[in-house]
């Protein structure tokens, strides 16, 4: 299905709380953020879908979405940004779907990383390279 931005906003009102990761946001590294989110658990790779463009049309506003059925929290990181922390979405029991979509700024070509924490504490991870290019010369 196509989850439109309009619908995503509706879902957001219904059950998704946006948290800004207090205490970690001062240029915490990917490793520090990962350790804090996972508690050291080794991540699996199934049960999480990260959707990004292969090449950003505009590095200042890159649409990304994460679908992780059954997750209680999803953390999004931009590994090549001065501050890799992007957002952590938490899902309460009333959430109809564990899905988050937003737009992020990417300073350069880099991997975007999504991690989801499941109800049993297990972690799954997906990542994708998003290229930020100067453009031109396509033909």
């Amino acid at each position, binding site marked *: 299905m*196509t989850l439109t931005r309009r619908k995503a906003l509706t879902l957001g009102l219904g059950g998704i709380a946006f948290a800004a990761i207090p205490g970690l946001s001062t240029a915490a590294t990917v490793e520090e953020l990962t350790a804090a989110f996972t508690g050291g658990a080794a991540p699996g790779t199934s049960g999480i879908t990260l959707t990004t463009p292969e090449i950003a049309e505009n590095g200042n506003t890159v649409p990304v979405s994460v679908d992780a059925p059954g997750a209680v929290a999803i953390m999004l990181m931009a590994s090549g940004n001065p501050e890799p922390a992007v957002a952590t979405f938490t899902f309460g029991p009333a959430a109809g779907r564990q899905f988050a979509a937003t737009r992020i700024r990417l300073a350069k070509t880099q991997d975007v990383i999504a991690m989801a924490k499941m109800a049993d504490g297990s972690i799954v991870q997906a990542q994708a390279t998003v290229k930020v290019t100067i*453009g031109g010369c*396509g033909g």
Partner: protein
Amino acid sequence: MITRREFLQASLAASAIYGASGFGNWSRLAAQQALTQDQLLQFDDFGNLTLIHITDIHAQLKPIWFREPEWNIGVGDAKGQPPHVVGRAFQDMFGIAPGSPDAYALTYEDFAALGQAYGRMGGMDRVATVVKAIRAARPDSILLDGGDTWQGSMTSLLTKGQDCVNVMNALGVEAMTSHWEWTLGTERVNEIVESLPFPFLGANIFDAEWDEPAFEPYRIFDKGGLRIAVIGQAFPYMPIANPRWMFPEYSFGIREERMQAVVDEVRAEGVDLVVCLSHNGFDVDKKMASRVTGIDVILTGHTHDAIPEPVLVGQTILIASGSHGKFVSRVDLDVQGGKMLGFRHKLIPIFSDVITPDAEMAALIDAERAPFKAQLEEKIGTTDSLLYRRGNFQGTWDDLICDAVRSERDVQIALSPGVRWGASLLPGDAITREDIHNVTSMTYGQVYRTEMTGETIKTVLEDVADNIFNPDPYYQQGGDMVRIGGMGFACDVSKPIGNRISDMVLLETGGAIDPAKSYTVGGWASVNEGTEGPQIWDVVEAHIRKLGTVRLEPNPSVTVTGI
């Protein structure tokens, strides 16, 4: 290397689909140099449906010369695979005799000499003859245009694409997708789309603000008791490779998951056949075919490849129909019980001296050109050299254009975009204004003059090189390397971004380019809004007028390794 025989066996072993290509037949006939229209059109009807595909005509309504690439380097899994095979290796792969008409049509070798023997190719009046003949034999057919149709000539620029729209409407196109069309701007595109008697398809064109589908994704055709879904896939990197500000309302992208969803949707509706009319580029389509299930046929476009036989990926066949009106593909399919059981295919070369022009279409094209005839045909100079563009690096047309920019704009270094469109000229040909437009015509042709540091120039070269030589096709934008005048460099295509470009030298002094030093740079086709300067065709015209006769020496300024 895989021979044609091995190719067919590999195809049959890998799939329940059986197939054949008509290429070998005309190849043998052509080798006897006894080409006739009947031979070019000869085809043993097969199955119960015919697809007719033309793509990337780049507004070329009249026959032209078009030299196929000498450089078409494949990286990663594409290395050594069609279309990344050129010249003699291409001839060997497909059993083509050197010097034959098919060698002339499909490869670069001896181009100037063979061009004299076999004549210009293309012309939409000849294409109309071919399309009418196929339709007469096969009433159950669909004519599909893969896009890059409304841009590339002086008349298309002056009429904002209207001449091409009128011609393609008269040809009876039944659906199209898009790329350079968008460089006419959102308003003009939507104005034309509203007037079209057929759908303008793009499953991957989204509203940029709301991230929702913005154009008709597919059309279901009823032909001969079959229901055929044709899904459109526009050029994915539209806002990156071309000026985003001209169509800010839309977002593109490969959107593989969207393609799968649309395929699933039409399959759920019970169609008999799924066709993707794509402007992804061949390698992107090849990867997409390996990851999206349920597409029977991909009609590829964008990268201007002409491949004499379908390429099979899983259960999907990929058709590559060339560019500039040089070829029309006929694909006969046997579709039974919702499955494609087999195919017969022919890449029909449009030899303009062999195929009789369709009188109605010829009259229409002449009428479209009439208001501009004097401007188009004015002779600006003459060329002693073969002028061509297509190929991964350099090209004599771009050497001439870079010379013009350096001379007319008084800069040390000139940049010219690595687009794949642009007709060739043979030694001895007059250079008319129309010929100059055929390699420069666009809605953002201003020639800028600026200063760049050596470091910035390297960044530009690295960025463009990665758009061609990234081993993952989904990161390839499908153009060729930016052309450069006044500067030499080396490129190791096997390296990652940041490490491909080295040995940058300023040719006028022979000294190394200093990363920290600024150089004067001129170029055209900037994607930035508000670029100022004279139009590139005027700059080139002024330069050629001063020269009178153009002569290009071989250009050794680029060294390529890692192939």
